[in-house]
């Protein structure tokens, strides 16, 4: 019994893909996260450092214009949701979205994600956390050695943005800065920004 070339090729394709199936069933997969329901967060501390370091980011304020005029994060732009969808992200730039609370920014996050954009983040805690932890932070009077770096970093940022520090007797207060924003995975491939719209056909 002899096989034609095409039959041999088909058999090869069958076996190598069967092997692929077996491999992916046996080998433990890396924790499959459901990416579609995940939000990429930015902490206020990261944002403050990025603004100060003149990183390539665009900060978007999603609150009403009246709130924006009263108070906003330096370098931010005030956009409505529909303006945001038309917003042309500068090349190689990441978008940081903020609002009064996370709900509105997360909604905007998913709308952008639906458009296929990838380089955008939600500012965890929004403008309130910015106010409470960057501009007018409360820091412990006594600082352990391990937290010395962090405290001096916050001090520098507060004075850079023209705020004021209040020292209190609570060592726990630094916990906020130490806990990482949940689902933060923007440390990964950040270089992939290359004008993605043009990668398609």
């Amino acid at each position: 019994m002899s096989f034609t070339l095409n039959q041999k090729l088909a058999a090869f394709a069958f076996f190598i893909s069967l092997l692929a199936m077996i491999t992916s069933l046996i080998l433990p997969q890396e924790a499959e996260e459901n990416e579609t329901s995940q939000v990429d967060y930015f902490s206020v501390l990261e944002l403050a450092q990025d603004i100060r370091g003149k990183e390539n980011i665009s900060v978007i304020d999603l609150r009403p214009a009246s709130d924006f005029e009263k108070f906003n994060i330096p370098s931010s732009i005030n956009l409505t949701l529909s303006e945001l969808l038309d917003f042309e992200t500068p090349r190689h730039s990441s978008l940081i979205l903020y609002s009064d609370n996370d709900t509105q920014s997360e909604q905007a996050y998913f709308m952008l994600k639906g458009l296929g954009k990838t380089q955008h983040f939600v500012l965890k805690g929004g403008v309130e956390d910015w106010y409470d932890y960057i501009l007018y932070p409360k820091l412990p009077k006594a600082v352990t050695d391990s937290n010395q770096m962090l405290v001096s970093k916050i001090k520098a940022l507060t004075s850079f943005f023209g705020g004021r520090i209040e020292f209190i007797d609570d060592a726990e207060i630094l916990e906020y800065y130490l806990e990482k924003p949940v689902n933060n995975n923007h440390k990964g491939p950040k270089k992939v920004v290359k004008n993605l719209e043009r990668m398609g056909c």
Partner: protein
Amino acid sequence: MNGPFYINGWIGEEVSLIFALVIGIAFGFFLERAGLGSAKKLAAQFYGRDMTVFKMMFTAIITAMIGLFWVNQFGVVDIELIYLTPTFVAPQIIGGLVFGVGFIVGGYCPGTSCVAGATGSLDGWMNVLGLLSGILIFGELYPYLESFYNATPMGALTFVDYFQLPGGVMVFILVILALLGFWASGKIESRTSSPKA
């Protein structure tokens, strides 16, 4: 060895463009070799007389798909970094239908019209001109089409995400479907060609 090389900064802009030229040459070569530079051969697909388009397209798809699974498995390339065109259900279904109509009317798709033109087919060049003018019209109408263009977005979405299946299982299912398709197209070809000829 960590790919994609371009995204990970292993090769620069200039090298990537030379690579583009080489890839293009190989792409055009294989299209012409299989006969996809001929409008009659392409159109014959849709009259059940010659299944070359289907055979070649799906062979290429499963070859790259299986290959990608294995290179990802061996860590040569990170599959997550490969650009995925985002899914927009309505415009892509309507776009596909419109494209199919244009394909059978004109006899070429954008890539094969270039190949046809390169081998001296004047109708291939006419098709390219038609494509360019169609793109211009689309561009001019874009402000009106934009809302539909962006309708029903689902983001970058693969079957693996959608069905929540391990990659290899999805590969196997699609390969089986393709092989069944190849078997069926052999049957269709022998039915349409042998009794008449």
